[in-house]
């Protein structure tokens, strides 16, 4: 087994952990961190699998750089939204503990 392949397999494990964190955790910042973990896992697989085949491959490396910038932008936007949400409501979670009066919750949540 080559080192890049090990990276790719690690990526598979990290995807599972990240997905569990994203669904299971309630704190919004933790959800965002879980998404970042998933992002890194994806990048590991992208680079690892390609380099296992080709040796050093600049194309996936460049793709990952682009992907990192995109994920930084998304994370930063998420953090700004979370901060403002916290400022307005004092809450750090999407679902409220007690159902709000007067709001029409749909029963299922994403």
């Amino acid at each position, binding site marked *: 087994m080559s080192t890049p392949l090990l990276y790719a397999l690690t990526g598979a494990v990290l995807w599972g952990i990240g*997905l569990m964190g994203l669904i299971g955790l309630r704190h919004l910042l933790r959800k965002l961190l879980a998404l970042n973990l998933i992002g890194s896992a994806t990048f590991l697989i992208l680079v690892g699998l390609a380099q*296992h*085949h080709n040796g050093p491959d*600049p194309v996936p490396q*460049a793709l990952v750089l682009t992907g990192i910038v995109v994920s930084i932008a998304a994370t930063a*936007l998420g*953090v*700004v*939204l979370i901060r403002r949400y916290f*400022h307005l409501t004092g809450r750090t979670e999407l679902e409220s503990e007690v159902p709000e009066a007067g709001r029409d919750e749909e029963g299922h949540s994403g």
Partner: protein
Amino acid sequence: MRSPAARIGMLLLALMLTALLGRSVWQLSMLEPASDLPRQLQDKLAASGVEHPVTAVLLNFRSYDTLLEIAVLVIAAMAGISMARTRSLEDPELRTSDTLLRALLRWLVPLMLLLAGYLLWAGADRPGGAFQAGAMLAATGVLMRLTGLPLDFLRPGILLRIGLVLGFALFLLVGLASAIAGDVFLAYPREFVKGLILSIETLLTLSIGMILLALFVAAPVNDASEPEEGEK
């Protein structure tokens, strides 16, 4: 906390995903290498204007990706500053008069700026480039803000907005100019390719630094907000 059944369900889901993904990665790794992309890249590298293959991919072969990636950054920055409706982005609580800290900064800030410049220049033939340099610029700004040095240009005014899009605008103009000159969108003319890439990278560095810093500084502390439709 969630019910135990839901948590076990999540665990199973995650384990299943990992197992299937791992299996798929393993199977794919057994295949013969299919790609001759790295070889094609080596063949065309000389024509790309930079020696470092990753920079060549980012700013020449797949420059459209990079253009859109900067657009994504600009969007995030816009959405960020649209939330910060305070007139000054300076946080008075962070202002410090610690002489030792100031003295340290006097050394650190120029060094960090120098490093940013180096990273930008290094991008041509080794790891480095606009994003890394921009991140370094932003880190300098974060340090300055956390120690209370004034950052006037970060007020949400026209100057900030120009700064945010400067690099993107140049990139876009180069794209248009190459199309008008008779070639396709974003195809740099051979003779100027090195200079163009360098000037795009330089302005991008400035813009990326400002974008990241603006996102850091965008402190959403204010009470203006839009009422929901029909609830005025």
